[in-house]
């Protein structure tokens, strides 16, 4: 409906006064789920609202929700491009090729693709967040808190971003609890509440008492809430409504500052292709409040890790680390380069199971 509205305004704008369009900057967002998911898309929509609030009348934002990854995205993007948008954010990994394909056809429109790595045209930027830094913090908490020594991880798709998170969480859980095991479930969906809930139930039935997720809905939280003694972490959004049990902390994606900065750049005509990868230091990744369910010394340790990542004195992937098959990856004291991280397609030593290919 929003799109219909924007199409109509675009038609009016084109017909009446094409040059006057410079007055308002039109920013479009493509969502993989709905803002009501309480997680991933919710936070992108918060970013969109922040843009509207910051610029007021100077900006007009639109969004299209529930856009399937793949060919359908190209249709939606083309429609957006044709309806007078100046800047378009595509907020899911699976829009990568479509974003670049449409960008080639509309060189005057700026495209920003979240969590991707392809920038085939000068009008495509990519941006992402170092969620793995947040995983280091909650992995530490998980290692301390698990009593069964089984940590469950509900994973979406086998892409580097997800694998980094699993590795980072495992490394830091293992560091404080050598007996910790990681149980990974692949659900092959970003958003399927019933399946996510079933996955959480399967993990809990098999003795997992700490649940992490890299999917978009709050369903695993709701499932974990049914069993006493199970804790979980908010994903992408704070999910504070599930505190004090099971939510004990969270990783929050904070897109607003970036969206405002990039919209400003388009307004000023200073927009250039960039490859942004922000983390805890830049505020793009935040750790949600650690509740009182966590003992004070564990909380202090987690916050110390957060602080050391923020000031750059610690890197979440610091050697010695071996790959799953035992081959050395990082030597003592060595840290992983961004190239390694961006293409990560292996588990670190100690995680069982194979990554689907």
């Amino acid at each position, binding site marked *: 409906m929003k799109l219909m509205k924007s199409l109509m305004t675009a038609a009016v704008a084109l017909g009446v006064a094409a040059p006057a369009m410079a007055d308002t900057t039109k920013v479009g967002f493509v969502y993989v789920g709905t803002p009501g998911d309480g997680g991933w898309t919710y936070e992108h929509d918060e970013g969109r609202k922040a843009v509207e609030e910051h610029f007021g009348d100077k900006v007009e934002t639109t969004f299209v929700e529930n856009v399937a990854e793949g060919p359908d995205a190209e249709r939606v993007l083309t429609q957006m491009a044709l309806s007078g948008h100046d800047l378009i954010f595509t907020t899911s990994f699976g829009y990568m090729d479509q974003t670049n394909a449409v960008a080639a056809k509309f060189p005057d429109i700026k495209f920003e693709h979240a969590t991707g790595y392809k920038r085939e045209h000068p009008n495509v930027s990519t941006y992402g967040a170092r969620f793995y830094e947040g995983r280091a913090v909650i992995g530490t908490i998980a290692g301390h808190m698990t009593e069964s020594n089984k940590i469950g991880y509900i994973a979406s798709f086998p892409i580097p971003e997800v694998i980094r998170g699993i590795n980072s969480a495992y490394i830091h859980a293992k560091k404080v609890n050598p007996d910790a095991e990681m149980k990974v479930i692949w659900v092959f*969906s970003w958003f399927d509440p019933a399946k996510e809930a079933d996955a959480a139930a399967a993990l809990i039935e098999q*003795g997992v008492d700490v649940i992490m997720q890299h999917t978009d809905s709050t369903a695993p939280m*709701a499932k974990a809430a049914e069993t006493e003694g199970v804790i979980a972490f908010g994903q992408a959004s704070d999910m504070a409504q599930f505190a004090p049990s099971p939510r004990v902390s969270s990783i929050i994606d904070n897109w607003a500052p970036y969206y405002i900065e990039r919209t400003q750049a388009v307004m000023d005509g200073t927009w250039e292709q960039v490859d942004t990868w922000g983390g805890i230091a830049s505020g793009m990744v935040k750790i949600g409040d650690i509740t009182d369910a966590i003992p004070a010394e564990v909380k202090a340790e987690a916050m110390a890790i957060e602080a050391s990542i923020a000031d750059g004195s610690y890197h979440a992937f610091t050697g010695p680390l071996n790959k799953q098959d035992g081959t050395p990856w990082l030597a003592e004291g060595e840290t992983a380069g961004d190239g390694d991280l961006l293409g990560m397609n292996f588990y670190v030593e100690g995680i069982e199971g*194979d990554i689907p290919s």
Partner: protein
Amino acid sequence: MDLSAINPAALLASLMVAATPILLAAIGEMVVEKSGVLNLGVEGMMITGAVTGFAVAVETQSPFFGFVAAAAASAVLSLVFGFLTLKLLSNQVATGLALTLFGLGLSALIGQAYAEQRPPSTARLDLGFLSDLPFFGRVLFSHDPIVYLSLALLVAVWAFLKFARLGLVLRAVGENHDAAHALGYKVVRIRMIAIAFGGACAGLGGAHLSLVRVAQWTDGMTAGAGWIALAIVVFASWKAQRVLLGAYLFGGISVLQLNLQVAGIPVPVEYLSMSPYIITILVLVLISRSSTAAPASLGKPFFATS
């Protein structure tokens, strides 16, 4: 690999819960299709039921009222479909698809205020000593009432279609509406009732999803369950016992494959992930290969000429 970590009782118990929304929606759709109407709006009716059931349960703090309201709301929605297709003779396929889109949008609108709420928990039926039985108590006798209702409904529908005179009339309407009309049966009225029943079942299934299986409201939470139900009805060749088999196979393998992943079975996850779809279709196609009797008037518009 540690298969001993899988608790068969817990697995079978969650199988029944996972299969119930699909089973309910499929029972309803089967009756609708038996009467000769193809309603592709199952997904839309399910999600409307999910949000209505959730909202009413939160407001009244009673899951019972939630389920009743869910059934009623989806039945009303399905009657819109009935009015359009039977009275105004609109195309059933297009109208059904529109119903799904409408339901998804409407539910998102209604659900906005409920995204962060928690529903009252649905009490499990206490069956006394039966619930305390080892193994069987956990698997069969410790569920919420809707699980049993879905099974009772399935038996009732089976018996109704097979033995009741009215069931015979319903089937006649679905097989040849002109002949049924000539015999004096009220084709449109019977189909309306079937459509409303289908809507109510889909609504119950949706509410089971939002009140029991996931126990929260999220936009688009049915995520295709309605389409699975539709497919199961067709592959089960419109037979109640096969619908049950299909729904439980699909729900069961969905849950089983997740458990196998946790246990670390050395089968590539891709195969596990597609297994619910493949196995359900394969089994149903194999057992249905001799009889693919779609109701002869399925999807055809009916216009009483006299």
